[in-house]
């Protein structure tokens, strides 16, 4: 739970501050906007240790609606935005973040080359953690029906059928299929797993009304038949709640949730003991996992004086210093990309996803528009109101209208 974790994080932060009080002095204002999950809370708390000037943070789930306007002014309200590979695009599109090459040369010792997000040869962000959706399952249930953890979606369906037929669970598959962002994300996973590409090469023209797209939708439909009938209203939180209640045995879930998934009050021992994770599954005989890789990282605003940019960089470098990885509480919060991180049991799924060459979420200026269109238009198909072809052509039409408006087509 967030509360407990942020308490641990801040407690640890205090301890470290006392012991290491390590050199972090800054001379200008630092103001950070970002999401609110535990790993980012830690980054924020660590950055606040810096002395010499004010460090403020605004960590909220609405960060995406405020980071662009908050960085467009001159001088910008926020000197840094913490973002992921999907949301850096909005900042790039509006040209509100600065290249970090000179700052890295000056203060960036200890960064691993893989942490640098380079766009057209310029470092635009520093990544600190990775994430991916992967298999989460109940080992005890699968043992009961005598199968191994599924490695493909076809095996997942077969296992679900056995669980249902043997009367163990009515709706053994969990899925965050809530209409909107989550549903679209599940489509992306499955589509990439089928070998699909979202856009025609080198252009903004959509490319999803394809055989891969149709197979994707059909697989999603088959899965949904083993889900709670209300699946179109279930997001990650509700899906996890079903898992905790013992109603779900297999699901595709975010790696960042693995650590805390079964820690809530009142979860039965059976569920806690049976909880297990594996890397993402493949589909339709493919070798690319039906999932996407994500990173979270920080940026530095463009419309601020150079001394504020430098102070921001120093504070954030302090927040991701390798010594933090020695603290078990912090190390377990995420799959850190920071030097010195030793994988924990909760990180196995994400690490396996990376090893399996899962495709990173596309960092393309118009991907967000397609994602939105998918989220709005696919629900009709899953409710059986229209054919897969119709749904996909609706998505393409909705995307085209939006992309025309935004000047991409």
């Amino acid at each position, binding site marked *: 739970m967030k509360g407990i974790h942020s308490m641990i994080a801040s407690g640890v932060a205090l301890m470290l501050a006392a012991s290491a009080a390590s050199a972090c002095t800054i001379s200008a204002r630092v103001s950070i906007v970002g999401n*609110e999950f535990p790993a980012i809370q830690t980054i924020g708390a660590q950055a606040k240790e810096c002395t010499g000037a004010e460090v403020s943070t605004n960590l909220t789930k609405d960060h995406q609606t405020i980071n662009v306007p908050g960085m467009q*002014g001159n001088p910008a309200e926020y000197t840094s935005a913490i973002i992921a590979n999907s949301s850096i695009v909005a900042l790039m599109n509006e040209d509100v973040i600065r290249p970090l090459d000179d700052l890295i040369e000056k203060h960036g010792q200890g960064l691993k080359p893989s942490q640098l997000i380079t766009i057209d040869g310029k470092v635009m962000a520093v990544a600190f953690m990775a994430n991916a959706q992967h298999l989460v399952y109940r080992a005890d249930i699968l043992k009961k029906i005598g199968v191994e953890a599924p490695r493909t979606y076809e095996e997942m369906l077969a296992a679900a059928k056995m669980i249902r037929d043997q009367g163990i669970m009515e709706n053994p598959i969990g899925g*965050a299929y809530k209409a909107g*962002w989550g549903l679209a994300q599940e489509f992306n996973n499955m589509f990439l797993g089928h070998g699909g590409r979202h856009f025609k090469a080198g252009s903004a023209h959509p490319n999803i009304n394809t055989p891969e797209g149709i197979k994707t939708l059909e697989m999603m439909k088959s899965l949904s038949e083993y889900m709670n009938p209300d699946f179109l209203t279930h997001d990650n939180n509700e899906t996890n709640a079903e898992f*905790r209640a*013992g109603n779900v045995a297999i699901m595709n879930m975010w790696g960042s949730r693995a650590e805390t998934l079964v820690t*809530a009050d009142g979860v039965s021992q059976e569920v806690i003991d049976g909880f297990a994770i594996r890397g993402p599954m493949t589909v339709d005989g493919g070798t690319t996992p039906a999932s996407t890789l994500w990173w979270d990282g920080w940026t530095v605003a463009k419309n601020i004086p150079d001394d504020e940019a430098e102070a921001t960089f120093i504070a954030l470098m302090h927040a991701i210093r390798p010594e933090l990885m020695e603290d078990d509480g912090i190390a377990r919060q995420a799959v850190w990309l920071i030097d010195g991180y030793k994988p924990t049991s909760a990180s196995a799924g994400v690490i396996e996803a990376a090893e399996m060459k899962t495709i990173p979420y596309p960092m393309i200026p118009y991907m967000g528009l397609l994602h939105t269109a998918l989220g709005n238009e696919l629900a009709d198909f899953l409710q059986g109101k229209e054919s897969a072809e119709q749904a996909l052509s609706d998505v393409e039409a909705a995307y085209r209208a939006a992309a025309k408006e935004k000047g991409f087509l």
Partner: protein
Amino acid sequence: MIRKMPLGLRLISSAFLIFWLIMAAFPFLWTFWGSFKVELDFFSLADWTNALFGRNTVETHGRPFTGAGYHGAWIAEGFWRPAINTAIVCFFVVCISLTIGTLGGYALSRAKARYSFLLLILALIFRAMPPITLVSGYMLPFFEWNLWGILPTTIVVLVAINQPFTLWMLHSFFQNIPQELDESAKVDGCTQFQAFRHVIIPVMWPGVITTALFSFLLAYNDFAVTSVLLSETNRTMVPEIAAFLGTTYTEGNIMFAVAAVVSATVPLFILVMLFQNRIVSGLTAGAVKG
């Protein structure tokens, strides 16, 4: 009107009222009851009777009720801070919007020129604007001028968004105060403002209090404005509850949210209990004669 009600009608009427009473009150009672349970019982995903008897709560805490949600919300997550922010926002929104609203509503009710009617219609159309659109328009200038994220900005915006409704309520209320009152004061040599101050203000309280309650509810319950215009540290209660519910990335503190929902509803209960007669008498005095 109702003198001797025939028995049949009385029965139907009572049955209907009991039905409505259950409809209106049961969801609150249920949530209050559930707020002392753990998440799995509150949502009773396994078996609905868990929500009644708290099977998982007993297993975790040894008794069927737990204050863990309240402890988490108020102490671990510091829900008192949004509560104070809400109090500040509500106090100033009500005061400011009534001060400028009574002046404006009074002027509209006494002006005979055509523009006063047009202003009223314009206010009505302003009220039709979805608040989300307005709010998205504020973002850039507010950031530019360093006004974003702080309580005063939110207060001013809520006052402005609330003005059309306040004006309409007070306008029709003032229309029911006889014009002769202030006219005769003016004949006696008062200026318009003195007439307002000495003659109208003493008799306007029933309508103003009713309007105040509606302004208060708007400020207290607002989500569209506060969730977008306030920074994390300055949040009021409603956006804070929304934040407890979690994101795609984090597990929500659902039971904190439920406890916070119950806590946030208590002041409203007390308010309605204290002021319900005022609401009715204020409305009776004419604030609603459309």
